[in-house]
């Protein structure tokens, strides 16, 4: 298949730096005063302080996919308004340095993409050919990362209360799929509907939908104690 067409088929055109081959060497000035440096600093802060990220990193290590910052994360310029992505081909999480400017946003993107990476690690996810798999991972990532928290939604001027989280998760999963795959909206909606109940209720590795740092810390505490927990039952 023609490379350009393949790029568009799988959403790689949103991440133009992915095909550049060898990373271009940066000058000291470029390293210090650019979006790239800011992205690296915010990423490090997320890894060290976000209970969501810490739990996911532990879970991935336990599953045999230890994450190394230099190998598995890449700060790049991206097209449009996309914030990040997970590239299964290279086993890398892409962070869009030109579109992430606040630490809270970085925390959410890191969590969101780590959920994709976690799914890739623990399950036979067919990212490229199985839309149900893609939809499922997007539902989980929107649900568990804080993407659909009340405050995130309010900041997007989406006001809703009763069960609004589910509406948000559906909508964001749909948008994510439509951004990276060429299918019709109707088709995408149908697929999201088919897998929604299963995937909305899959809370691995959190054991709950963490609504904020306190619940994420509880989830991390439970994860650390999982051996004691399972042996006591």
């Amino acid at each position, binding site marked *: 298949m*023609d*490379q350009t067409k393949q790029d568009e088929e799988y959403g790689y055109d949103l991440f133009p730096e992915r*095909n550049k*081959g*060898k990373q271009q060497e940066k000058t000291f000035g470029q390293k210090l005063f650019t979006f790239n440096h800011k992205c690296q600093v915010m990423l490090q802060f997320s890894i060290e302080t976000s209970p969501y990220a810490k739990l996911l990193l532990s879970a991935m290590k336990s*599953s*045999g*996919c*230890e994450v190394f910052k230099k*190998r598995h994360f890449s700060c790049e310029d991206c097209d449009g308004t996309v914030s990040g992505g997970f590239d299964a*081909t*290279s*086993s*890398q999480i892409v962070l869009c340095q030109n579109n992430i400017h606040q630490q809270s946003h970085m925390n959410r993107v890191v969590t969101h993409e780590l959920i994709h990476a976690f*799914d*890739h*690690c*623990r*399950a*036979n*996810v067919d990212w490229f050919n199985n839309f*149900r*798999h893609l939809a*499922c991972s997007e539902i989980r990532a929107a649900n568990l990362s804080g993407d659909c928290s*009340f405050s995130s939604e309010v900041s997007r001027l989406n006001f809703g*209360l*009763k*069960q*609004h*989280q*589910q509406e948000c998760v559906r909508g964001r999963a749909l948008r994510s799929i439509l951004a990276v795959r060429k299918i019709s909206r109707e088709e995408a909606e149908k697929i999201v509907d088919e*897998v929604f*109940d*299963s*995937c909305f*209720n*899959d*809370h691995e590795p959190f*054991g709950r*939908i963490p*609504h*904020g740092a*306190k*619940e994420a810390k*509880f989830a991390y*505490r*439970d994860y650390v*104690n999982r051996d*004691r*927990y399972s042996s*006591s*039952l």
Partner: protein
Amino acid sequence: MDQPRKAAWKPPRDCEDYWSEFRHCKTLLNFFHHYYAYGTTPSCQQWKEDYSYCREWEKHGGKEAKEALQNSERNRVAQQRNFTPVWELRQEPPRDWHMPLNQENSQDS
């Protein structure tokens, strides 16, 4: 060689963890989050019961308290697994997870 001693049974969580979950469950914020996610009000009573079973077991080591705790937690686990997975779980992690990057990028047209 000595026979390995069977480790004494410990409750699934520290008793304080049950209490902190109960306290958190009762907050207005948690009520709000639960309603926002599920459209229903949260039920917190089980955490309180589990806390008292845990304390009961710590004081007297009774069989009823232990079994009540185990049943409660097994129920929680079952609720977490109450869905049919969309995908198959792997037996091993993906082989290329740790492969160096320049080996990954075989972008032949």
